[in-house]
């Protein structure tokens, strides 16, 4: 792919959308913050020009909707200008959330694969397990999370693990569903071939079902890692956790630090995007190593 094409096909469309969003955001910030600013001005008996008024709506300390540059400078300050061990550093909070996301994602992926293997190989599980798995995802995570934290806290399991378990709860589902599909993806003719060799169930599993399921695994892991992050953040809310993006959101809400809330949201989004990108990249490398035809969609 040439540099020109990269700019034309990838960067341009994204940049345009970002600019549009920022523009809408600024307009929104003005209208959301204007009533409060008018109120302030009236009380202080100040009359300002339109430009002055506009500037004021963009620089309130606790705006209803912070302007993009306020959020950006908060994110920049708390990411690059603070020690990463500081309680105010977004890197520190992101790291706390990331570690429980990683543990939960790993457990969830393993659990999902295990369930899928069971469903594909044991007829009884195939018939009984799926409805329960689907039902498990119908329960709102916000209702389950506090109970998990409280129950585990009662048996002295606190800290990272309860949060990770909520991530696990959310992330095993896409992996289980994707892997059931993946392990069943070999065509009849490929399975017949194994039968003509009198291959054992284990040989068919390792030499056919597992390699055939790899693309499905990475697709579902992309969904699972984003779900894990949501799980970790949600898990931080009811614990009164002192660290993590979730606790940053909660603290911001308590003290009406709207800029902090938005900064934490941005940090969470960036983290999610990074995690999904990493999974996608690893998936691409693995598929390349497995001889997949290189994509030529942008060539």
């Amino acid at each position: 792919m040439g540099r020109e094409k990269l700019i034309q096909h990838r960067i341009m469309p994204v940049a345009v959308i970002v600019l549009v969003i920022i523009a809408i955001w600024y307009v929104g910030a003005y209208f959301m913050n204007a009533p409060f600013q008018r109120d302030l001005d009236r009380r202080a008996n100040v009359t300002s020009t339109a430009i002055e008024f506009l500037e004021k709506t963009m620089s309130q300390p606790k705006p209803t909707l912070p302007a993009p540059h306020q959020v950006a400078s908060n994110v920049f300050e708390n990411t690059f200008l603070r020690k990463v061990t500081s309680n105010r550093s977004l890197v520190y909070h992101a790291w706390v959330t990331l570690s429980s996301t990683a543990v939960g994602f790993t457990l969830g992926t393993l659990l999902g694969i295990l369930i899928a293997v069971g469903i594909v190989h044991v007829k009884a599980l195939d018939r009984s397990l799926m409805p329960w798995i689907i039902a498990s995802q119908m329960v709102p995570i916000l209702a389950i999370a506090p109970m998990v934290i409280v129950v585990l806290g009662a048996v002295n399991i606190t800290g990272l693990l309860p949060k990770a378990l909520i991530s696990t709860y959310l992330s095993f589902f896409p992996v289980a569903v994707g892997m059931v599909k993946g392990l069943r993806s070999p065509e009849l003719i490929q399975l017949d071939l194994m039968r003509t060799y009198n291959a054992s169930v284990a040989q068919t599993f390792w030499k056919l079902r597992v390699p055939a399921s790899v693309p499905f695994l990475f697709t579902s892991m992309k969904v699972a890692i984003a779900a894990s992050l949501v799980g970790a953040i949600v898990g931080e809310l009811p614990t009164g956790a002192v660290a993590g993006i979730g606790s940053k959101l909660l603290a911001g809400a308590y003290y009406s630090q709207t800029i902090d809330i938005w900064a934490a949201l941005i940090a969470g989004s960036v983290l999610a995007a990074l995690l999904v990108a990493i999974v996608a990249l690893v998936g691409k490398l693995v598929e390349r190593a497995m001889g997949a035809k290189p994509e030529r969609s942008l060539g």
Partner: protein
Amino acid sequence: MAENNFSVVSARKLGLTFETNDGPVHALSDVDLEVKRGDFVSFIGPSGCGKTTFLRVIADLESATSGEITVNGMTPEGARKSRSYGYVFQAPALYPWRTIEKNIALPLEIMNYSTAERKERIERTLDLVNLAGFGKKYPWQLSGGMQQRASIARALAFDADLLLMDEPFGALDEIVRDHLNEQLLKLWARTEKTICFVTHSIPEAVYLSTKIVVMSPRPGRVTDVITSTLPKDRPLEIRETPEFLAIAHRVREGLRAGHSYEE
């Protein structure tokens, strides 16, 4: 050929009925057949005549519902479990994540051949199907004809003296098909395997076979068994000789007779 009296495949009154929602379908009915060691037997007939089903019964991919069949003197299941045949499907069925040589190694891995022996056999069979030098390629890097040759190499890699081929060249164009037919005959002469070959092409069946089994549908049954009088050494030009055309004519007559009751 006195030493060739061993029956590799022997079917007596073989029948297979599929139970479907629309009632029973008689895929095979009263099939009697002997395939001797070293034979090249073609099964020809319109679709639905049970030729593929019969091949799948030999391979123990389907089970007969009546009659008897032995493969290498055993039940089809026994023959499959002792890995006594190689099967070539309509599609190459190569595993896309394996290179060509790894695909050929697949049966060898499953049957626990040593690494050294695997290497030797991969080289030998690649050579046999004229794919030497393509071992490191992935299937998508090869043409359809080359892929099907690789799948034949895979079926030849282990020690099975029976080769079952289910319309292996059906999806290829005629020029490639002619070429592969010629190669297949040479390969048959070199390896002295017994081959059961399903096709719906009359020239292909006549060109390749020592014995042509003509089948007809509903119910699937054998209507004629023609023993070829062509010599074993067959250049492609043999297809224009009167002898060849006479056999082709008899096959065509057999196919027509099988169809007549439908009108």
